[in-house]
């Protein structure tokens, strides 16, 4: 059971990180569909650069750099050139998908799975005293730095969003942009910042996917960016809500993984579990139309 909880948290981290990024854009009034693409591109570049530089931080920085560039492209096209933010998000995903395969082929001469032995390992951190507590120990201790960072960021985001002037301005922009304008808050500036932040977080999410495995597989995000999007919607503008939704989806992924390892059920069928769970949660938590005629 504690193994299962452990897997849940590990599976949850990439989704949670990407979702926190998506939360900022959602609060500013835009739905960032490009999370999947930003994650994927960072997943590739962070492990590749970590490998050739033999340095984790440089690798992560490179991955973040790429996802932030993608975010800036999205922002410029949506905000300056007035493109449809959904289509630009789809473009980001397509571009990242093509780009990563292209780079994988050009730089590593492969189109499938590449293992990067030279990339430094992301150690599991065993918290000194806690790690020895019977059941709780396994659940709280023994994750890598990115897993812990994700949880910490949830609370950092909470404070930023609800307790700082920036957070008030951001929420005002998303709730009623005309009001924000009339009190002198720049809608453009906040949406631009939100995109960059989402690129940063999605990049972290991507790095947290590939670095622990020292491997990149084409298309390895496999829909996590979309699940993160659902977590954003379900979180209803609150990082704690996003955390809650991410835990549920982490459980679904862990379930899929565990069953694949321990049973004979076809792996392909088990891979549908996270998506079905996400869909079910979306349906259950949707609001019924009230007071309207068909």
């Amino acid at each position, binding site marked *: 059971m504690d193994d299962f909880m452990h897997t849940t948290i590990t599976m949850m981290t990439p989704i949670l990180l990407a979702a926190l990024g998506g939360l900022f854009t959602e609060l500013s009034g835009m739905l960032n569909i490009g999370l999947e693409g930003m994650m994927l591109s960072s997943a590739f570049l962070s492990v590749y650069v970590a490998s050739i530089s033999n340095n984790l931080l440089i690798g992560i920085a490179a991955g973040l750099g790429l996802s932030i560039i993608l975010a800036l492209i999205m922002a410029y096209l949506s905000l300056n050139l007035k493109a449809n933010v959904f289509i630009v998000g789809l473009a980001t995903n397509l571009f990242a998908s093509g780009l990563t395969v292209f780079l994988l082929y050009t730089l590593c001469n492969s189109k499938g799975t590449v293992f990067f032995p030279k990339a430094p390992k992301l150690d599991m951190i065993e918290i000194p005293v806690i790690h020895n507590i019977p059941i709780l120990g396994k659940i709280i201790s023994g994750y890598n730095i990115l897993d812990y960072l994700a949880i910490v960021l949830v609370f950092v985001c909470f404070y930023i969003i609800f307790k700082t*002037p920036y957070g008030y301005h951001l*929420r*005002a922009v998303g*709730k009623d942009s005309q009001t924000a304008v*009339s009190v*002198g808050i720049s809608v453009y500036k906040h949406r631009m910042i939100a995109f960059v932040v989402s690129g940063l977080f999605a990049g972290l999410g991507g790095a947290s996917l590939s670095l622990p495995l020292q491997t990149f597989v084409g298309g390895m995000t496999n829909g996590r960016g979309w699940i993160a999007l659902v977590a954003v919607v379900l979180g209803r503008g609150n990082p704690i809500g996003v955390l809650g939704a991410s835990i549920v989806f982490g459980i679904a992924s862990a379930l899929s993984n565990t069953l694949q390892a321990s049973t004979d059920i076809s792996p392909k069928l088990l891979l549908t579990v996270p998506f079905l769970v996400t869909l079910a949660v979306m349906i259950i938590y949707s609001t019924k139309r009230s007071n309207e005629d068909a």
Partner: protein
Amino acid sequence: MNKYMLEMRNICKTYEDNGVVALYNASLFVRKGTVHALVGENGAGKTTMMKILCGIEKKNKGHIFLNGKELEPKSAKEAFKAGIGMVQQHFRLIEDFTVAENVVLGKERSGRFGFINRKKIIEDVARLSHESRLELDPELISANLSAGQRQKVEILRTLYRGADLIIFDEPTTVLTEQEIEELFKIMRTLKKHGKTIIFITHKLDEVFKISDEVTILRRGKNIASGDINNFDREKISYLMVGEDIDFEKRASKGIKKEAVFKVEDLCIKGRDDLVDEVKGVSFEIAKGEILGIAGIAGNGQLQLVEALAGLKKVSSGKIMLKDREITNLKVREIRDAGLVYIPEDRMNEGASCESSILENIMATKYYKREFSQNGWIDRRKSYTFANKLIKKYEIKASSPSVKVGMLSGGNIQKVIIAREFSSDPEVLIVCEPTWGLDVRSTKFVYDSLCEMRADGKAILLVSSNLDEVLYLADRILVMYKGELVASLENSKELTKSLIGEYMMGLHSKERSEVW
């Protein structure tokens, strides 16, 4: 030393997207410490002028001087810095935030670690509201505020930012008579504290009650200005419009005819499905009668009207058209039964701006046998029909293929009226029909409604414009907090302040008397 605190000289502004000339060499001179009324009919350019002053719009030509120094407000922020604040017509509040959070929005001072000190903000706002006699609890959630309270939040916002020049854009449209008096008291207090006030309005009695000086705009030009004592009602009215247009009461003195539309004990639940927003409303409308519903917006009128039109569910009660019950039927069935609805929101609900005039007109008819067969629409017949309507209602458009969004407000309303009237309805429900329209279009709407009444139609007129209700309605109902609190014959003795009292809920207990 300049004698004017604010000088706006020869301002020109043309809107790029539709080529409309909003202001042409318009000037404005305001003395410090006065209440200056900026008057003109809808579309004259008053709001545009103030938006330019506040940095929300950019002027094409002209100069602005504040206290002798030239000012080029490129954004709302710069206008605030210069000490200019605007209380807009449509209140700009974030519904989820508290009063205090809305007042300081955009100008929050952060404390340690960049965090906001909630307690200090509440204290500051409480103190400010007390000093300016705008008593308001800083911790109230804005979504629950009344119109008058929301306006106070807007005023507090300008004071919090240290505004010396405060602009009020049509502030009394959504207020009751009593709240208007309170607003004037607040204005006088602000004047005493050394503030200068610009007061935009098209309601002439208010101009004479509160202002010291007046400027009149017509079609984007400054027609006249000066001390208020040099003007009278007729003169300003004439200058505003450029001709004599008189609105006399048009209530018909018909004999009591049979009721053609009956509403019995209607209850409608609010959005959260818990509380009734309309409680036990009953009334009848006779053939050839205009029944007016007066009331401050937000007292259930919108819900009532939407339920009658089929856009909202009724939780209990009956709606009868002639002998047929139409409660909770689908919109199309209600329309086919003979009830049409002209909504307040012209641009989003009453018309589809992205669609052509033809499509807008056919939207309620395309499925009918005259226009379609076996699932295919007869485009030639539709085109001819639309052309006929364009001629009949004198809609200014070159062809039915013109996009509705390209038309002026008055012409859009004409398209809507053309569509709804041409289905030969028995009952018309009309909401705020002349909101934002110039005098000529307003006259057209009133003429059309009176024609319908003469034709024996039953009309329900919902309007927050008491003058309008008094001009047109034969009987007047008043809604307050979801209930009907008065039913009054529109006789010569009926005054706006009596209606206003009912609108404030002052006589609700005496309801049984007046029935």
